[in-house]
């Protein structure tokens, strides 16, 4: 919808899109790549909003795994 603010759905869509481009690596490697990508290119506020809450609705399993990596700090910059 034009003019709508960023929503969790927007972040989910973007994260899922990133995951799709790493899927060929298999879930574990892809999750690391996605986490690294978000770490390097998403702002702190976007990451914080993305990581807030436990709801995994609509999330690609790779993104779910990437979230866990980010939460645990297992991925460096």
């Amino acid at each position, binding site marked *: 919808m*034009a*003019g709508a603010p*960023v929503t969790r759905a927007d972040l989910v869509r973007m994260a899922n899109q990133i995951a799709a481009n790493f899927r060929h690596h298999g879930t574990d490697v892809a999750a690391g790549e996605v986490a690294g990508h978000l770490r390097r290119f998403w*702002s702190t506020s976007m990451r914080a909003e993305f990581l807030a809450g436990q709801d995994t609705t609509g999330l690609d399993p790779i993104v779910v795994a990437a979230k866990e990596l980010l939460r645990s700090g297992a991925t460096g910059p």
Partner: protein
Amino acid sequence: MALLEEHDLGTPSVAGSSTVKVVVDGLQVTVPEGTSVMRAAAIAGIDIPKLCATDSLTAFGSCRLCVVEVEGRTGTPASCTTPVEPGMRVATQTARLAKLRRGVMELYISDHPLDCLTCAANGDCELQDMAGAVGLRDVRYGYAGENHLDAEKEESNPYFSFDPAKCIVCSRCVRACEETQGTFALTIAGRGFGSKVMPGPTGNFLGSECVSCGACVHVCPTATLEEKSVISLGVPGRTVVTTCAYCGVGCAFKAELRGDEVVRMVPLKGGGANEGHSCVKGRFAWGYATHADRVLAPLVRDAITDPWREVSWAEAISYTAARLRAIQAEHGTASIGGISSSRCTNEEVFVVQKLVRAAFGNNNIDTCARVCHSPTGFGLKQTYGTSAGTQDFASVAEADVIVIIGANPTEAHPVFASRMSRRLREGAELVVIDPRRIGLVRQPHVSAAHHLQLQPGTNVAVVNALANVIVTEGLVDTDFVAERCDPVEFERWAEFISDPEYSPEATEAITGVPADEVRATARLYATARNAAIYYGLGVTEHSQGSTMVMGMANLAMATGNIGREGVGVNPLRGQNNVQGSCDMGSFPHEFSGYRHVSDDTARHIFEQCWGRPLDAEPGLRIPNMFDGALEGTFSALFVQGEDIAQSDPNTRHVQAALSALDLCIVQDLFLNETSAFAHVFLPGTSFLEKDGTFTNAERRINRVRPVMAPKTGKQEWEVVCELATAMGYAMHYESAGEIMDEIARTTPTFAGVSFAKLDATGGLQWPCNDDAPLGTPIMHVKEFVRGKGRFVETPFIPTDERASRRFPLILTTGRILTQYNVGTQTRRTANAVWHPEDVLEIHPYDAEERGVADGTWVCLESRVGETSLRAHLSDRVPPGVVYTTFHHPVTGANVVTTEYSDWATNCPEYKVTAVQVQPRAHGGGASDPG
């Protein structure tokens, strides 16, 4: 400086290592084998009289003025068409030659107006000069004979006139149109005395195929083809050498002036990017710089519904600084940010990102390159290690196969297109990968070997199919890969790409490109001596823009087409300083020189230099800023020289975001679509006022020199520094050169750059440092910047933007020669005569199905908006695809483009929008479907 007149050596230079020694008028000179006697003489300091010869064109030998005597030979050969030979002894000044030349000049002058004193070219006329050089004192034939003196002047072109009465039919203009520009719009009609220069059958320049590049005007030795500005203002008296501010070719120009008034812009022969050529924009469309619409004083208002209030610079700066600090106090340090412009100089961009990082205290800095070439930066860094094209423009002269992907050089990068066309006319093979049949697919003496007319959004499927053929048919350059690339990454990629799902036969149904065409293209590319890829926004502005860039980089590595002349992967940058704005640290995750903000070493360099702790986390990208504004977490935006309300996708979304800001600051030349949402307008400077540098698509750092003092009283970087200082962070430079010195101190790839060195060399291609003190024309020669080249697997992920029953067509966008981006500059010039409005190209089949006739209004609707424009029926686009340009705000093409973007960089997917087209009774521009 005084008027800069570049020495014309008469005939082009000849390449080659063999040299020949000759003696001209007693002076010995050594020149490359194949050099003309005329050029050898000129190198020796002896200018032989000439009229039809000039060193940008192949010798023609028609005027007979350049005759010489050669010891041991009879006759008087034309020096322009006579090559030197070992031991040749030439005399250029003898009584016999003088008599012959005077006789030739008598014939010319007997049919030429004797109006030198009132002629626009008086003092700048080679015919006049030659009459003096040969000592012409009278004309034995008189002036009453049959002549052309009553021939009618042709004035249709807005920038130059054609006066056949003054024409000596030397054919320079015709040859320049052919050899320099490659358009072949001019010809000599008739024979003998009836010979006449003709721009097509009508004799009308405006209605002809002439592209107004100005090459014919540039080489005309008389006032036959003359700039109208010279006719109205007079012959210029001084020169300032500077750089064009239009596309990423970065042509060098001589701004020729009378006092402080620009009379004309003449392409610089010594310009590394353009070598004396130009296009209609750079050559003629500079009038916007002094247009009455320019805003020259700062404007302020409390609310965007208020009228603007003109204020002093001091008030504007203090008002803006106070409001920015108040917003940060209320909403936090990260609640403000800035956008830098690819139209501004490196120095201006550098201080804006410094303002954001050091004074704002965050990394919320992005650049308009976000919406064009950010995938180039990502993709080439991943594969090669640095975010830039690999070649210089001259490299194309060595290419045997040229692959153009998603670019339209004749419209968007015309001067480079002319170089490319020249190579194609010499016999290089051309492949075009584009949904639309661009001009280069078939033009005079150029015909593409293959046009892969793919479905929009399937670039990656095509590049994978090409790679599949190269790997499975054994066409990999195994020596190159073994020596230069990471073997583990290569093996992984080779296995990935060999999967039959990537074969041309399997992808044909997705891409629409016949498998045999893909196979033939792959074989052509892989087996060429030198094959080069040139690409544009048709690659980057997709949901897989970054993937496609990496896919092309893979192709070049797999076939060994990297690291020497004639090869490479080359982005054609849209704006004059896209490369530079990216180099200067305009992305929220990178400092200048493409170093991540989390890189402690890099960050400490800037912290020490700037005396502030800096954020180690990436900031917001442009779309994130818009989203934050709508969320209420982002409240103030500084916009330098970009009309984001017109240029960014999903206009309604952008407008809503801008409306939600507490403070929007626009620094620009004109009030524009974005300034409608601004609270502060800081007037900017045109390229004719700027002092600094632009970096073009070949990484060439070119000086931009002020032709006139800033009309606003301040350089843009001074305004930014004053704003930072008013916010409590002192920023001060005495000159733009000092800013470049700071760039060099903090940026390893610029370590060897200074204004003094740029002035001395005429321009440098980065990296320029101790390892490469004179710059780097071609990158990755011995090793990649990252060491070993990295192959990256590139799965094809179709975009979510799909044609549907409701929106069955795919819209793609592009540019046209005479307009530039959102038209802010070019719409304020006579260029409007060629493109007064954006039109929608639609295939006749789709048009007929909808009852749409050529030239009638249609409604163009996507799921986010609609607009109306006129239809142009054309089979340049295939059925199912429509195309338009985005140069006019009334059309608002971005009203219909969506929020989808590249997965890695958020570069908008401008090139794929599902739309419907329906007849409409009348125009009306953009609107929201609600």
